[in-house]
């Protein structure tokens, strides 16, 4: 198992460096895909071995039900993003937005971005987890700024500044947690190690851990794009190259939520702290959904529309975590998976539209269903999926979270439902504007590249299948993860 984890980290590292030596853009893109295929295969193998053998811990790495779920997300999304990068980059080159020299650098950053995300997930030590999360920010900032035009520089600057401050808060919280550990007399155990914490945290000074929890939740909450710390998110997610937007919205936000979940698992060992942390998360969650509504109802930019939808979905997931009940946690974890797959695919679709119509303005993109019937159908299906309609998996997960909210108190559930209805109104209104109407006269019906169809089709297939049936092994993983986050220790 240890070797497998090392392999999963080594492949993106080696591929990232090797791709710099490839001059031809198309070759670099295919090489990148091969690298991502190998990484994803290794990750799936790790998941399979885990399902058969159970938890693993060695040499600073660990696997338990919680991080294996997130490895699954990274495995699927890095693969679809690598697939979509092939036609996307070729198109950008044809349009002259990028030069050939920039392409290898893109794939180098792509591989390292995936590397830092995997690293975040397998770390056993909460301090090193912090280090890896900060590393994801730095690599992805260069990807956000990749096209080096004015707006992407602006987005990247805001991204690094806001997230660095946020993540500095998380470091402060982590130091406070370490102090709580030292103060309780555990100096001989692994400092800030997950296993040491999950065994002893219930003996820590609750006041101190409470303080630490606030800093950590605000800090990683900034990275996860929870309101009111979400201000960087629409900029960064709309300005990045679209395959990266998909990764940022689907995978990186999930990884940030993983950092929250892992720390929450420690806080939940102390009931008073768990309560405060839960209330804070519920507050952030409701605020995130609420803040997204006006921006979703009045939006001109298609990628920003999707970015605000991410704020809303992450808010809903934070709600599920904050409720703390097994039902809420189960729904939140399932929704993380579903949302990651759906949102990334929706970004790929939007990227294709932006390239074909040469504009990000929603009002200028019309008649998609006439020009690209199959593609329009996939767009509609994905919007319905991301909004949480049956028969997609998101329906099941959103329903579970709402159900957990009604168990907690009817007014919260009602408020969340009303906000979700408003979100749906905004999403579907703009989608219908995109789909119907008269397409611009100069737009010829274009053939889609097979890579996009495969990437989006695969995502849709996964979403529909989780809508009907959660496989037994996945259900077992989810249940085990719920116990971990809920404060059940290992």
């Amino acid at each position, binding site marked *: 198992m240890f070797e497998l984890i090392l392999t999963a980290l080594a492949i993106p590292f080696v591929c990232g460096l090797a791709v710099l030596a490839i001059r031809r853009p198309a070759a670099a893109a295919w090489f990148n895909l091969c690298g991502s295929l190998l990484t994803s295969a290794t990750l799936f193998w790790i998941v399979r071995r885990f399902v058969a053998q159970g938890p693993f811990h060695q040499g600073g790495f660990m696997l338990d039900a919680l991080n294996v779920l997130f490895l699954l997300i990274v495995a699927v999304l890095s693969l679809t993003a690598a697939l979509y990068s092939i036609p996307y980059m070729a198109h950008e080159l044809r349009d002259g937005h990028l030069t050939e020299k920039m392409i290898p650098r893109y794939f180098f950053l792509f591989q390292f971005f995936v590397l830092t995300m995997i690293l975040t997930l397998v770390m056993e030590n909460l*301090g090193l987890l912090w280090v890896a999360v900060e590393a994801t920010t*730095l690599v992805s900032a260069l990807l956000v700024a990749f096209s080096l035009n004015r707006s992407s*520089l602006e*987005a*990247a*600057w805001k991204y690094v500044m806001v997230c660095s401050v946020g993540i500095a808060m998380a470091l402060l919280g982590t130091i406070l947690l370490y102090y709580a550990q030292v103060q309780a007399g555990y100096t001989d155990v692994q400092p800030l190690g997950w296993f040491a914490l999950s065994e002893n945290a219930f003996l820590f000074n609750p006041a101190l851990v409470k*303080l630490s929890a606030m800093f950590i939740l605000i800090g990683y909450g900034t990275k996860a794009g929870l309101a009111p710390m979400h201000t960087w998110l629409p900029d960064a997610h709309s300005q990045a190259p679209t395959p990266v937007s998909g990764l940022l919205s689907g995978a990186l936000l999930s990884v940030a939520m993983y950092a929250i979940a892992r720390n929450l698992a420690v806080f939940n060992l102390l009931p008073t702290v768990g309560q405060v942390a839960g209330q804070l998360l519920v507050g952030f969650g409701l605020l995130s959904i609420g803040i997204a509504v006006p921006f979703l109802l009045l939006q001109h930019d298609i990628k*920003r529309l999707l970015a605000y939808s991410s704020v809303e979905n992450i808010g809903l997931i934070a709600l599920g975590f904050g409720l703390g009940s097994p039902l809420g946690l189960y729904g939140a974890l399932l929704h993380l998976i579903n949302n990651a797959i759906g949102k990334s695919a929706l970004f790929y679709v939007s990227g294709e539209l932006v390239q074909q119509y040469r504009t990000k303005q929603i009002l200028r993109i019309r008649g998609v269903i006439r020009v690209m019937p199959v593609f329009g159908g996939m767009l509609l299906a994905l919007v319905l999926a991301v909004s949480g309609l049956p028969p997609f998996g998101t329906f099941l997960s959103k329903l579970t979270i709402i159900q957990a909210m009604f168990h907690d108190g009817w007014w919260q559930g009602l408020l969340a439902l009303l906000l979700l209805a408003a979100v749906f109104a905004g999403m579907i209104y703009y989608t219908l504007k995109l789909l119907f109407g008269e397409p611009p006269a100069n737009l010829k019906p274009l053939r889609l590249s097979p890579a996009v169809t495969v990437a989006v089709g695969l995502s849709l297939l996964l979403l529909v299948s989780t809508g009907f049936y959660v496989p037994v092994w996945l259900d077992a993983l989810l249940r085990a993860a719920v116990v971990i986050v809920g404060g059940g220790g290992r």
Partner: protein
Amino acid sequence: MNVLTVLLLFTAFLITRVSNLRLAIQILIVQSLGVAVACVWSGLGSELMHTYIAAMLTVVIKAGMIPYALFRVAARLRNETENKPILSPNQTSLAAALLLAVAYGLVDQALPGLGRDALAGALSGFLIGLLIMITRRQAVLQIVGLIMMENGIYLLGLSMTRGLPLIIELGVFFDVMVAVIVLGILTFRLKLSFMTTDTTVLQKLKG
């Protein structure tokens, strides 16, 4: 230790008054050297090797490589000074004084029983760094504010637990260094694209 706390606060207050980029970086070097001395100081009592390594890294990275990178960026930014900060130097100094009081209040509330002055000094260093980041428009000064925050956190860790375990410390140093490199690249690109590193020009993305 008190002398070092005073030095940290003095440099922090000095930066609230600076509009010249190079001067701000020089003050940052002094502050980082102070942090390194504090690190050695805390290691003297015990026989912990790792505090000395951490002190050495502080000198090399925070007083050496980071200022070097910032000076290189600043060298390309002729005629760039902080012209109209969001809070004037006087207002910023006043706000910093308020933050110092807030820091003392917070430490008394939340962390009683530890070295009060050192903790409050470190916490106000963190808060003043944040203040600089928010109220300054020049990209380089914002980076300086970020490193000040980092210094404040480092000192907090030092006075609470004699610093983090070495492996985590190494990771944090590495991240800080890469962050400055990334921000340096972005600053340089801002100069190329916008002809200025005044971040007020960054207001196109809205809604």
